[in-house]
């Protein structure tokens, strides 16, 4: 079944109009030696009923465990209206809005999105999205280096409190640009990047500084101190932020001196976790930097009759115009997810977003209180946190998580691999989706497992 409408009669008529007798003749320019005879390795077609059964079986096999995983992807309530509208055919099956007059729905949605993201981050302009938070961070690094022409070092300081996968992706994506991404250690008691650590770079030529807030440990960094350090040395700041947290926290535009480029993962804004994607990365910046910003941007303008309308603008930055000199090679981005996020932010508004942030913070405090009451579990850091925290255990994390998983609970992320210096450490998260009952269940299973094997 290939969704082809043609009957044999249709095909005959069409072949006649072309002046050939068979479809094969249309492929005559292709050297015969290259033609595939039979596609080995592809099974025969299934119909929709059969595929439906298969997919249902597979979905059920994955189950729906009670999850306390965060670490860059967060479970939040998504109002039903968000995807009911986002999956309307007019949004779902529309193309990139190159023909503006036929795409005002998409273009206006993106303009509204840009407005919301710019305000949420405290910046002046935002683009129409990048692929995800990690690749957006990589693009921000490249953008910061382009902007900072005074610096010759190409050294970018990246705290270890930035998400490990973001650091890895940034390395891969900037690999051939002669940049040096240098990692900064965090203070072991607070789980934060400290001014002392930065001071080691005091007299040196640094191209940019990245700051993640909340950081990967869920801890709130002392952003004003870090920001001040960077500004006093004319080092551009790349802020990596959680958009839900911005309903509650001071946005990077208002950090002391302000951030220069803000990026982050937009998934918490109405996008399901879906095994890691599709998500979207957002990028916001100061107006003076807009011509170095990668990705699409929509502008409002007038039509021939003097009426307002929306169109893609500043396209000279992009690959289809600048080609080899483009700010990025990005073409297709994450349009459908931007639509969902814009609808989510419209339903929640400033009060709703603040409440989601508050409620998530409260649930996380309740979670940490409950599980640190279990003997063998203690909080790793004394600092304020947003909605996830690191706890230290008295025994290896992996077998414990496996045992919890057998009881259909995902306790969090084992940090042993990426932060071995923390010992047996677990990153655990609670959002507004967790009830007190959920938290009590987790704590009691944990207590049972930790007391059973001495």
């Amino acid at each position, binding site marked *: *079944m*290939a*969704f082809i409408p043609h009957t044999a009669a249709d095909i005959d008529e069409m072949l006649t*109009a*072309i002046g050939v007798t068979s*479809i094969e003749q249309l*492929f005559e320019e292709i050297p015969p030696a*290259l*033609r*595939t005879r039979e*596609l080995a390795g*592809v099974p*025969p077609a299934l119909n929709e009923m059969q595929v*439906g059964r298969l*997919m249902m079986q597979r979905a*059920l096999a*994955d189950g*729906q465990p009670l999850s306390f*995983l965060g670490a*860059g*992807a967060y*479970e939040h309530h998504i109002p039903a209206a968000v995807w009911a509208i986002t999956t*309307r055919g*007019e949004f779902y099956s529309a*193309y*990139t809005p190159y023909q503006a*007059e*036929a795409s005002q*729905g998409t273009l206006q949605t993106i*303009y*509204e999105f840009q407005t919301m993201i710019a*305000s949420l981050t405290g910046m002046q302009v*935002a683009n129409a*999205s990048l692929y995800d938070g*990690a690749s957006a961070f990589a693009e921000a690094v490249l953008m910061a280096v382009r902007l900072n022409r005074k610096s010759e070092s190409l050294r970018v300081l990246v705290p270890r409190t930035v998400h490990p*996968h973001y650091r*890895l992706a940034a390395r*891969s994506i900037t690999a*051939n640009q002669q940049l040096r991404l240098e990692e900064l250690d965090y203070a072991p008691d607070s789980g934060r990047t400290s001014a002392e650590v930065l001071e080691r770079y005091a007299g040196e030529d640094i191209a940019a500084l990245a700051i993640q807030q909340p950081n990967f440990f869920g801890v709130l960094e002392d952003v004003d101190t870090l920001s001040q350090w960077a500004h006093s040395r004319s080092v551009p700041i790349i802020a990596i932020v959680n958009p839900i947290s*911005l*309903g509650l926290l001071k946005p990077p535009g208002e950090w002391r001196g302000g951030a220069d480029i803000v990026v982050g993962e937009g998934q918490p804004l109405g996008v399901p976790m879906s*095994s890691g*994607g599709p998500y979207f990365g957002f990028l916001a910046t100061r107006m003076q930097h807009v011509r170095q910003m990668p990705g699409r941007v929509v502008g409002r303008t007038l039509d021939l009759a003097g009426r307002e309308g929306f*169109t893609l603008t500043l396209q000279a930055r992009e690959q289809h115009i600048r*080609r*080899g000199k483009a700010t990025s*090679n990005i*073409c*297709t*981005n994450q349009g*459908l997810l*931007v*639509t969902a996020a814009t*609808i989510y932010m*419209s*339903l929640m*508004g400033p009060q709703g977003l*603040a409440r989601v942030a*508050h409620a998530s913070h409260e649930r996380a405090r309740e979670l940490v209180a409950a599980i640190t009451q279990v003997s063998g579990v203690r909080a790793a850091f004394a600092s304020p946190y947003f909605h996830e925290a690191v706890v230290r255990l008295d025994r290896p994390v992996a077998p414990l998580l496996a045992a919890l998983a*057998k009881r259909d609970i995902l306790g969090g992320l084992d940090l042993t691999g990426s932060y071995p210096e923390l010992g047996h450490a677990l990153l655990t998260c609670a959002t507004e989706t967790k009830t007190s009952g959920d938290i009590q269940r987790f704590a009691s299973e944990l207590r049972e497992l930790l007391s059973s094997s001495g």
Partner: protein
Amino acid sequence: MQPQPEKLIFEYSRAGRGATDQWPTTAATPAAIPESMRRAQPPLLPEVSELDAVRHFTRLSQLNFSIDTHFYPLGSCTMKYNPKACNAFAMLPQFLARHPLAPESHGQGVLACLHELQELLKAVTGMQAVALSPMAGAQGEFAGVAMIRAYHRARGDHARTEIIVPDAAHGTNPATATMCGCSAREIPVGPDGDVSLEALQSAVGERTAGIMLTNPSTLGVFERRIVDVAAIVHRAGGLLYYDGANLNAILGKVRPGDMGFDVIHVNLHKTFSTPHGGGGPGAGAVGVSARLEPFLPVPIVAREADRYRWLSEVDRPQSIGRLSAFAGNAGVLLRAYVYMRLLGREGMRQVGECATLNANYLLARLKQTGFDAAYPERRASHELIVTLKRQARELDVTAMDFAKRLLDYGVHAPTTYFPLLVPECLLIEPTETESKETLDRFVEIMVRIQREAEQDAERVRSAPHTMVVRRLDDVRAAKQLDLTWKPTV
């Protein structure tokens, strides 16, 4: 009936409004977060009821053309029907709810789908190994060129930093070369649409990392001497990269691996019908020959006995690394998987055949009705190019004018002004899911617009007339930047 413009969502705001039933109930301020860290002013988000939000975005959607509502023959974009089943099954609640870092014990279902997708893509492309994580064609290209560089470096060859691209190439190709620290070297395409072998021969050498090609090419025709192209590049020590944007033309009929390509990307949002979504999300899965396999981006799904697991950096030390935080656009991959299962072996072949049939039918009918094909002596692939340079010269009516007037007739314009080589061009790709009547209607409309251009050119030049906006002032948009709404205090 003229569609009505829709206000900005902010213009519906009233203080205190919101979809209050969707808000969690919480206590007041979080004392545990110091005030110095807290937001002083609320962000500029709408304060509207749920119904107002639903109406607003529903009305916005109605201002769009889409495949579900209009014929959308955008060349090189493959705007085929997006089956509803693909969306329905990818959005089963358990798939949606799964955290990317959930353990494999709670992921065998989705991992089985992804592994099988890897295998299916290998089979239809003729490549030895596949990675699914690149999130769009451009990221696939990045991965491909990065792998080519990694391959040469691993052999101790650091001089190879030139990527050859035909001058007709899509802009992402040279942009990708730059992102990978390479330079793009252009070679000309001949008048018959094939890459010039002579130019290629003089362009290759010790600095050649590889060549990026699309086949069928961006000119809508098959690169007939591809075997010679491959030989020339390989003999010079370079590798061949296949841009899969036009795979729909040859699906089930020719495999890029058999043409000699070393690395390819596939646009799942084109050939495998995942939604375009108003500009993504896409997926640019990459396939490689054996010699590039160690360099594939991570993560990749492996099957060991009858269990599936992710392979990441520790398992793949020579990988070019990861390109995203997690596994790429997993939900898109699930949609592509469903589509490939619905097509099956026979369906793949039917896609290639009918996409080509439809394009050749349109080519024949447009030629018969007096339009100029860019390559009249060639067979069309899955797309064809019509040039309106004669109309521009004789009637002062351009390809852009035709494109805008098509909108008034309820057809989304084809791709305009790409490829850059063909003046005043329309790159038209009908896809296999369109009926003969739709194609005939398109030809009728083109004939009508031609007549209008001859008799009332101004009507065409000032089109569209029936959309929610008239033609927009792009110059003003770039000069007087208005990129965010600001409240008038």
